[in-house]
């Protein structure tokens, strides 16, 4: 290829020399044709042509006749400009292509920088950094349209007119103008900067509306480097960037909405599943004592009717006269009804407590309370109720006073104790204890049941949680799975802690701890005691609304 154009070039130069030497029309025609043949080749050839024409000029300066020489130079110049202009055009086209490729590269870089952004909030810094880089600008700001019509700056260079988090009135007006015009608003602004180097210099500012369809999402503001004005090409490119920014904004908003919707859907599904399980268990747990209550009621009613009508006979005597055994049967079913009624009441109370905790409305009535007496009373009550079970008490002799709602603390201890009875063998002893450990009073219930695997220990405090595969002692109710959840909530509201220590097959120790009042020094005993109450009150955690 190089031989081809070099050959053509040599012939072209020869033709020019002939023309200059003879200065006739045929020579001119010949040189012109050869020159045209070369048009369309590359820049290196253009340089050669220029060199040949310089040689031509030198040659012409040596020509003796001034008239001939002037005419030759004029004709050669015409030829030169005619033959060179296509080269100039090709060169300019090449430059345009390079510029376009560079623009495209910058645009691709920009798109890539924004591609993985899934949240509108994360988009601001990326847009600002990459748009400035892509445009070779000094700084950018991304402002988002607010539902109330104001503009909030999502991100922008600090220490500039764009740094304010909310647009100023002047900026607001400028933005409105850009939006109304539906074209980029270009302004030249003179800086009144504190920075001496920048003071008095001018820069370009472009305001571009970001739209998704007809919807206005925000504006992109770009400022040039001091003293460097944006060209028309720069502004056209900024418009392309703005279109891509709008797309990225729309995408991020959509991704956010989708993520939110998905999370809501999952949470709703989980809540529904838990609710279904709960309803099924609650239904069973409530229906069992209800079946007993209704069945016993029907028996009692039937028997009382029969007694009244003289049809009821003692099962033993069979002579129709002695009603005493039948009456005792009625008394038995009535006492069973009462017992089952209490079970029902307990279940309903747990449900109500749970609803109150969920609504953040579990009321506490704290007062100074002797934990020793409380633990002893609850322990003794269970010793009576669960006759045949061994329940040991391990309580210090001196009173241990805490600031607490004694009824609620009793409820927690009762939950621990009934669980211990429910989940351990009838012959296994249970211990209820109280110990002062530093500034804490710790109450525990130990059972010799199957124990809890470590993985289950954190979960037992969750609402409706049930240990998989854990068999409750035959005859006891499965329960609603709310007791420990309620206990945890009550102790947490007192500023205390709950816990369980257990190993599989090693029994379980459920405990809770409450802070003791601060020790008052003897010199400030009176004052100290008041401070104690206040200090403890502060430890009662405020209700958290809407916890779930």
């Amino acid at each position: 290829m190089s031989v081809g154009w070099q050959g053509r070039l040599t012939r072209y130069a020869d033709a020019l020399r002939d023309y200059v030497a003879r200065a006739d029309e045929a020579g001119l025609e010949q040189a012109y044709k050869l020159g045209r043949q070369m048009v369309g080749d590359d820049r290196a050839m253009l340089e050669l042509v220029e060199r040949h024409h310089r040689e031509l000029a030198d040659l012409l300066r040596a020509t003796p006749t001034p008239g001939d020489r002037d005419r030759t130079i004029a004709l050669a110049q015409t030829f030169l400009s005619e033959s060179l202009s296509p080269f100039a055009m090709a060169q300019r086209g090449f430059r345009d292509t390079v510029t376009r490729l560079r623009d495209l590269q910058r645009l691709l870089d920009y798109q890539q920088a924004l591609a993985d952004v899934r949240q509108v909030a994360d988009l601001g810094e990326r847009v600002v950094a990459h748009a400035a880089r892509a445009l070779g600008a000094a700084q950018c700001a991304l402002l988002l349209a607010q539902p109330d019509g104001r503009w909030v700056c999502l991100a922008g260079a600090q220490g500039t007119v764009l740094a304010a988090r909310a647009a100023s009135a002047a900026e607001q007006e400028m933005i409105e103008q850009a939006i109304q015009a539906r074209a980029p608003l270009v302004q030249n602004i003179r800086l009144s900067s504190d920075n001496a180097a920048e003071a008095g210099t001018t820069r370009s500012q472009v305001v571009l509306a970001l739209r998704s369809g007809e919807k206005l999402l925000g504006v992109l503001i770009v400022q040039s480097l001091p003293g460097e004005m944006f060209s028309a090409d720069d502004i056209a490119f900024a418009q392309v960037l703005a279109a891509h920014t709008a797309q990225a904004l729309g995408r991020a908003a959509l991704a956010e909405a989708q993520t939110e919707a998905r999370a809501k859907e999952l949470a709703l599904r989980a809540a529904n599943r838990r609710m279904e399980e709960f309803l099924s268990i609650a239904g069973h747990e409530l229906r069992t004592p209800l079946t007993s209550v209704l069945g016993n009621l029907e028996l009692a009613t039937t028997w009382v009717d029969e007694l009244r009508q003289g049809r009821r006979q003692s099962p033993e005597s069979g002579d129709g006269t002695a009603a005493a055994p039948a009456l005792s049967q009625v008394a038995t079913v009535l006492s069973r009804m009462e017992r089952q009624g209490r079970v029902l009441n307990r279940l309903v109370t747990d449900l109500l407590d749970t609803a109150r905790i969920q609504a953040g409305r579990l009321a506490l009535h704290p007062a100074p309370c002797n934990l020793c007496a409380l633990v002893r009373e609850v322990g003794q009550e269970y010793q009576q109720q669960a006759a045949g079970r061994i329940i040991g008490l391990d309580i210090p002799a001196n009173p241990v006073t805490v600031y607490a709602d004694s009824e609620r603390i009793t409820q927690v201890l009762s939950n621990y104790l009934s669980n211990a009875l429910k989940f351990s063998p009838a012959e296994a002893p249970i211990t209820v204890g109280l110990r002062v450990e530093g500034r804490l009073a710790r109450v525990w219930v130990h059972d010799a049941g199957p124990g809890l695997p470590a993985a289950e220990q954190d979960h037992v405090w969750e609402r409706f949680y049930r240990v998989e595969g854990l068999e409750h002692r035959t005859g006891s109710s499965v329960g609603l799975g709310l007791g420990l959840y309620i206990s945890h909530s009550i102790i947490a509201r007192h500023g205390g802690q709950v816990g369980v220590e257990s190993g599989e097959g090693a029994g379980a120790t459920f405990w809770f701890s409450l802070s003791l009042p601060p020790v008052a020094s003897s010199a400030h005993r009176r004052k100290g005691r008041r401070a104690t109450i206040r200090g403890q009150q502060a430890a009662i955690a405020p209700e958290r609304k809407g916890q779930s």
Partner: protein
Amino acid sequence: MARGTVLVVDDDPGIVELLQMALEDQGYEVLSGLNYVALQLAQEQQPDVILLDILMPEMDGVEISHRLRANPATAHIPIIAMSAQDRLNATSSLMPVNERLTKPFEIKSLYTIVARWISAA
């Protein structure tokens, strides 16, 4: 002479007490047990009818009913499943039982159903 023998398999002592009192009052002999004890009682005592709860720890009603049916010595004994409506519906296809009694039930219906299966035997 008892009118018949009823085996009650339920883990709730309140229900067992109720059924025992109600059925004994009508002259039935009542046995009760859970898990393998229930299977053993069924085989050895040959009750006329079995009242079987569904939701129980260890061996549930579904398993017990299948074991009873699988054993030639107990396969013929009528089984009445007792549970709440939703559980009866959920397990109806899984349990080879003769009748279903929805909790809470009327004692009168209990009497009627037990008497029907005992006279049918």
